[in-house]
């Protein structure tokens, strides 16, 4: 619109340059009318077809071509002047740098060819058009691609969030039923008690799975979530284990995580061997900036006074020394305490 007003104004001001003012007026009026039409046509996405773009450019080129006849053959400025901008921006936006290049090349050619002589100003203008077309096109392409990528990322995030929400709703329902079966089973006894126990196992498994999902490893610099790894191991272990974590991921080096998990797993094996399959164990993970502490307790009768020393003297401390070995390898300490309340390992591992 602005360039149209500019075009109309300039041509009105310089009308004395026209050899055929009537014809010139007709061309200017036609271009102004086309501007109004084009503005309306471009507004709706469905009408922005190749035909419209070609027509737009063709009209501009036609206006360039008729200039020598309407004005004198050695004219100074073309009738459309800067009006060519509209058409070539449209091409650049629609067909990106290629469109911009083609449109600007055509405009440059049609602008230069009819001229009897090319001065520095003409050259500068066409050069700018030639450069500007592809660049504007390229920028449009980048912008559109960025918008597309952002939309895709937003869609992916929304989809993931919705999946998690649905999974939660589904999981919650399943957990409710499993907990109910477990509860009623325990109350009714007999065969139902067995079913209830199985439901309880499944319930614990699912619950720990959900928690692991909540603490998805951020995976920065090869670090993994120790809390999630402990949950996963404990769920798979034959001993009934309850895992307490600080909430959120406990990120440690991958090899530290695997060694700690192996040590805790050995503690649980020990529980199974000494207390039996009916035992319950608790694993507590705590995290400080410079160290992680993992406690493992069982509800067994504890280890009698002197039993450990006796076993050490007889060289039967296989499991305990393997636990100590793993933790000391990481520069940490393993402490064993026992009493009427059961047996407890406390593993402290520094985070270098």
């Amino acid at each position, binding site marked *: 619109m602005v360039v149209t007003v500019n075009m109309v104004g300039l041509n009105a001001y310089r009308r004395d340059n026209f050899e055929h003012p009537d014809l010139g007026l007709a061309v200017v009026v036609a271009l102004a009318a086309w501007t109004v039409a084009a503005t309306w046509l471009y507004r709706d996405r469905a009408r922005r077809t190749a035909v419209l773009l070609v027509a737009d450019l063709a009209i501009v080129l036609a206006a360039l071509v008729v200039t020598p006849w309407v004005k004198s053959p050695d004219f100074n400025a073309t009738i459309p002047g800067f009006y060519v901008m509209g058409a070539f921006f449209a091409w650049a936006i629609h067909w990106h740098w290629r469109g911009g290049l083609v449109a600007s090349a055509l405009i440059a050619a049609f602008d230069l060819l009819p001229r009897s002589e090319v001065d520095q100003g003409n050259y500068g203008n066409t050069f700018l058009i030639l450069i500007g077309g592809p660049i504007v096109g390229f920028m449009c392409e980048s912008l559109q691609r960025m918008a597309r990528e952002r939309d895709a990322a937003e869609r992916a995030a929304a989809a993931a969030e919705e999946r998690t929400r649905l999974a939660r709703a589904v999981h*919650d329902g399943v957990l409710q039923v499993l907990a*109910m079966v*477990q*509860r009623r089973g325990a*109350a009714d006894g007999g065969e139902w008690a067995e079913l209830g126990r199985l439901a309880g196992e499944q319930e614990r498994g699912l619950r720990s799975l959900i928690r692991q999902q909540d603490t998805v490893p951020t995976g920065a610099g090869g670090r993994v979530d120790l809390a999630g790894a402990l949950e996963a191991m404990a769920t798979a272990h034959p001993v009934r284990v309850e895992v*307490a974590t600080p909430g959120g991921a406990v990120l440690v080096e991958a090899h530290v995580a695997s060694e700690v998990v192996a040590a805790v797993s050995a503690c649980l094996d020990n529980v199974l061997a000494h207390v039996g399959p009916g035992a319950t164990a608790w694993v507590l993970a705590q995290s400080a900036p410079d160290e992680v502490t993992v406690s493992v307790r069982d509800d067994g009768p504890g280890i009698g006074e002197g039993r450990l020393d006796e076993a050490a003297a007889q060289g039967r401390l296989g499991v305990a020394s393997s636990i100590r070995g793993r933790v000391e390898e990481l520069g940490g300490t393993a402490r064993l305490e026992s009493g009427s*309340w059961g047996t407890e390992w406390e593993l402290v591992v520094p985070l270098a």
Partner: protein
Amino acid sequence: MVRVMVVDDHPMWRDAVERDLQAAGHEVVAVASNGREAMARFPAAAPQVVVLDLQLPDHSGVQVTSMMLEHDPTARVLILSASGEQTDVLDAIKAGATGYLVKSASSAELIDAVTRVADGDTVFTPGLAGLVLGEFRRIADGPADDPVDQLTERETEILKMVATGMSYKQIAARLVLSHRTVQNHVQNTLRKLQMNNRVQLTRWAIEHGLDDTRE
């Protein structure tokens, strides 16, 4: 006898909990299946203990907790949850709930928990104790100028034992303390957590100019 309100969106659970409580001689004064109903019925029913499922369809468990306690600070909220969503549980406790139980707990455990919560005691699962420890750890590692209460060494020690599944009786025996002392220590940890939460909320309000009434 304790006057109890049961808030749960699963009719199956609501009925089972109601039956268990009535069988144990408690009075169920109201039931609700979502946060809106719960808030509408709470003032008239005036329960001593609210057994609340965090996973309400309108996602309002935490909000319901704080609204109820604002309305009646003597009421006690016992959270009953199926999945043990970590952040929700911690938020509900910070909002003032004094008990937390997973749904797979037996009826005997539930009834025991209701009685204890009504008496002003706190009911922790090992999982919750782990979360509370983690929360205090995060506070300790945070900015040093925070005017918040830290746990004492004794409190941390006891909370660790709760987190590894020890009963108050076992803890009392292991530390050679009275049962009551252990109870008090655990209660203190919750009180500090809730206090810190209020301090943080107040500070947030001051930083954001919400205390400025001149405008």
